[in-house]
C-alpha cells in the first residue's frame, strides 16, 4: 500500500497530456503515458435485451463494433488504442454473457495485433451491481459476490485491465445532492466512499495480481458527474457540482493507495488530481464524448489526458458508418493533433489553448484545469485522513472559484455566489468527522448500512 504523501509533480506546469510519471504498459504492447495520447474507445448495444437467448445477436453486435473500430484505427494509421468494454448490469449479473463478450473482443484484438501490428489493450469495467438493493449491501450478499466473480472471470477470459465505476456512498450522495446538504456530502464522500474504495480496490487488486493483469482505476462518476448533470439541468447550483468534483477525488485516490495503477477511468474528471499526486496515466473525455453527455469541458479535459475517450456510444447507423467507428475517427484526429504537438515541442502552446478556451466559461471547466487540479491535489496531501482530505479538497475548490470570480475572469451569478458562501460555510463548520457521522446517521440513517462500510 502506497501512502501518497508527496506530489508526483513539482508544479502544475509539469502536468501534460501524453506524459505520465509512472506509465503503464499493458495488453498487446500498449504503452500509456510515454509521450503519446491514444484513443480509448467505448461502445454499447443499441436498444436490445441482454439475456441468454440473445447471446448470439449480442456477440454479433460486439463483433461488428470492435472490428470496425480496429479497422478504422488501422486505416488512419493510429498505432494503438485502449478498448473499453463496460458492462451493462446484466453482463455482470449473468456472468456468462459478460465473459463471452470479453473473450470475443479479445480475439479480435489479437488478430489485429498479429495482422496489422495494432497495439491495443482491453479494459473491462465491471458494473457495480451492489447498489441494487436498498439500502445497498456493499460487502455482503449475492450481488457483491457476483461482482467479484465477474472481475475474476473477466481477468481469466481476456481483460488486460480491470476498472469499475464504484458507488460506495452514492445512496447518501444522491439525496444530499438534491438537498444541497453539504454535511451529507461530507458523510458520503469523506467517510462512506473512501471506506468502500479501500475495501473494494484491495479485492480488485488481488484479483488482478493473481491473473497478472492491471488493476487500472476508478471514477467518481456516480457522484461528480451526477452532480454536473443535475447542475446542467439547473436542478442544483453549478458551484455545488464543482465543489463535489474536487471532494470526490479523495475516494478515487484511495483506489490508487491500495494498488490501482491507472489509467483512471475516462469519465473521472478528478483524473488530473490523481495524476498530480500519483503520477499515473489518466483517461479523460470531453468534446468527442458529446455522444454520451454534453459538458462544459470539451477542450480543457484534453490538457492532461493520456488516453482520450468517447465515453460511450450505441451501435446506431450514421451516414458514414456505425457510431462507434465514427467516434473512433474523431478521437483519432484529436490524438493526432496532440501527438503532433508533442513531437514538435509545441505541447505547451496547445495545452494553453485547451485550457484558456474553456477555463473561464464555466466553473465545471475551471476546477479541472491543470492549475486547479494541482492546487486541489496539494490541499489533499496537506491532510492525513480521508475525511480531512475530502473537506480540504472542497474548501480548496471554493477558494479557486472565489479567486477566479474576484478577478472578474469567471462570471458568477449572484445566486451561485450566495450558494458558494453557504457551501464554504458548512464545510468550514464541519471539521469533526465524528460529528458528521453522527449527524449524518440521524439525517440519512435509513439510506445506508454502517456495517456494510465496516462502521
Amino acid at each position, binding site marked *: 500500500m502506497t501512502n501518497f504523501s508527496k506530489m508526483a509533480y513539482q508544479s502544475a506546469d509539469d502536468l501534460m497530456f501524453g506524459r505520465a510519471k509512472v506509465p503503464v504498459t499493458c495488453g498487446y504492447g500498449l504503452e500509456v503515458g510515454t509521450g503519446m495520447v491514444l484513443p480509448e474507445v467505448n461502445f454499447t448495444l443499441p*436498444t436490445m*435485451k441482454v439475456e441468454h437467448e440473445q447471446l448470439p445477436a449480442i456477440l454479433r453486435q460486439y463483433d461488428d463494433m470492435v472490428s470496425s473500430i480496429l479497422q478504422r484505427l488501422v486505416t488512419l494509421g493510429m498505432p494503438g488504442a485502449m478498448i473499453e468494454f463496460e458492462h451493462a448490469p446484466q453482463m455482470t449479473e449473468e456472468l456468462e454473457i459478460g465473459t463471452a463478450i470479453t473473450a470475443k473482443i479479445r480475439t479480435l484484438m489479437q488478430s489485429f495485433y498479429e495482422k496489422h501490428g495494432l497495439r491495443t489493450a482491453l479494459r473491462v469495467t465491471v458494473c457495480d451491481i451492489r447498489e*441494487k438493493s436498498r439500502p445497498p449491501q456493499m460487502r455482503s450478499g449475492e450481488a457483491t459476490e457476483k461482482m467479484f466473480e465477474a472481475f475474476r472471470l473477466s481477468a481469466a477470459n481476456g481483460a488486460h485491465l480491470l476498472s469499475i465505476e464504484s458507488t460506495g456512498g452514492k445512496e447518501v450522495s*444522491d439525496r444530499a445532492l*438534491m*438537498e444541497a*446538504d453539504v454535511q451529507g456530502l461530507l458523510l458520503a464522500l469523506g467517510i462512506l466512499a473512501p471506506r468502500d474504495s479501500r475495501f473494494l480496490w484491495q479485492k480488485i487488486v488481488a484479483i488482478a495480481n493473481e491473473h497478472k493483469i492491471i488493476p487500472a482505476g476508478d471514477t467518481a462518476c456516480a457522484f461528480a458527474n451526477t452532480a454536473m448533470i443535475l447542475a446542467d439541468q*439547473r*436542478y442544483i447550483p453549478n458551484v455545488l457540482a464543482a465543489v463535489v468534483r474536487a471532494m470526490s477525488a479523495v475516494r478515487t485516490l484511495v483506489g490508487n493507495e491500495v494498488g490501482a495503477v491507472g489509467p483512471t477511468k475516462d469519465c473521472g474528471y478528478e483524473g488530473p488530481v490523481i495524476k498530480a499526486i500519483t503520477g499515473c496515466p489518466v483517461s479523460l473525455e470531453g468534446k468527442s464524448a458529446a455522444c454520451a453527455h454534453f459538458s462544459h469541458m470539451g477542450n480543457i479535459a484534453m490538457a492532461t489526458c493520456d488516453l482520450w475517450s468517447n465515453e460511450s456510444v450505441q451501435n446506431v447507423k450514421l451516414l458514414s458508418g456505425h457510431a462507434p467507428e465514427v467516434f473512433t475517427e474523431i478521437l483519432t484526429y484529436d490524438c493526432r493533433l496532440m501527438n503532433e504537438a508533442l513531437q514538435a515541442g509545441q505541447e505547451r502552446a496547445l495545452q494553453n489553448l485547451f485550457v484558456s478556451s474553456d477555463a473561464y466559461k464555466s466553473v465545471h471547466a475551471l476546477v479541472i484545469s491543470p492549475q486547479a487540479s494541482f492546487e486541489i491535489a496539494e490541499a489533499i496531501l496537506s491532510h492525513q485522513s480521508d475525511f480531512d482530505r475530502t473537506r480540504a479538497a472542497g474548501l480548496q475548490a471554493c477558494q479557486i472559484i472565489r479567486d477566479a470570480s474576484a478577478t472578474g475572469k469567471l462570471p458568477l451569478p449572484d445566486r451561485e455566489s450566495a450558494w458558494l458562501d453557504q457551501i464554504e460555510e458548512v464545510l468550514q463548520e464541519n471539521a469533526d468527522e465524528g460529528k458528521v457521522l453522527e449527524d449524518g446517521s440521524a439525517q440519512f440513517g435509513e439510506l445506508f448500512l454502517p456495517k456494510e462500510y465496516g462502521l
Partner: protein
Amino acid sequence: MQNYDELRECVIAGKKAQVAELVRKHLDEGKTAKDVMDNGLIPGMAIVGKKFQEGEFFIPEMLMAARSLNAGLEVLRPLLEASDVKPVAKVLMGTVKGDIHDIGKNLVAVMLRGGGFEVIDAGVDVPPDKFVELARENGADLIGLSALLTTTMPSMKDTIDAFQSQGYRENVKIMIGGAPITQEYADEIGADGFARNASYAVELAKKLLGVAA
C-alpha cells in the same frame, strides 16, 4: 387575503417552523383550514413552482419549500380530514427491471410531489409483475417508468405488456423517460407519454390525468 402574505413568503423561503406557527396563528384568528390552505399555503407553493420553472430556484430550494408546506399541512390535517377534501392523484414511479439508476426517477418523484401528487416509489430493478401488483395495491392512477440504458429499454415494453396481459392497462396511464428514450419509442411500445425531463414530467402527468395545470 392580504394577511397571508407573510405565510406565503415563509413557504417560498422554506421556513418550516415559521410556517407551522403562522398557520396556527391564522386558525386562532378564526380562518378556516380550507382558506389557509387555498389562499396561503397553495399559492405560496405555486410561486415556488413558477420560480423553479423560470430557473430562479434550484431543487434544494424547492424541497425546503415543500417541507415547509408540509409543516403547514400537518397542522391543518386534522381539520381538513373532517371536511371534504379530494385525494390527490397517485403516481407509482420505478426504474425498470435490469436497470439500477435511480436519480432520474427520484428527481421526477420530487417534482411530482412538488406539483401536488402523491408518489409511491417502487425502487429500482422492478420486475413487470411487481409494477402491476403495486399499482393495484395502491390504486395508482399513473405509472412512471424510468430506464437509463439501451439494454433495459425493452423492460419498459415488458412492463406495459404486463399491465395489458393482466387486464389492468385500462386503469392506469403510463409515462416513460430516461436518457435513451424518445417519443418514437414511447409510441412504439404503447406508452401514453414521454417525459423528456423531470420538469416536463409534472406537466405531462397533469395532461395525462386531466388535472388542471
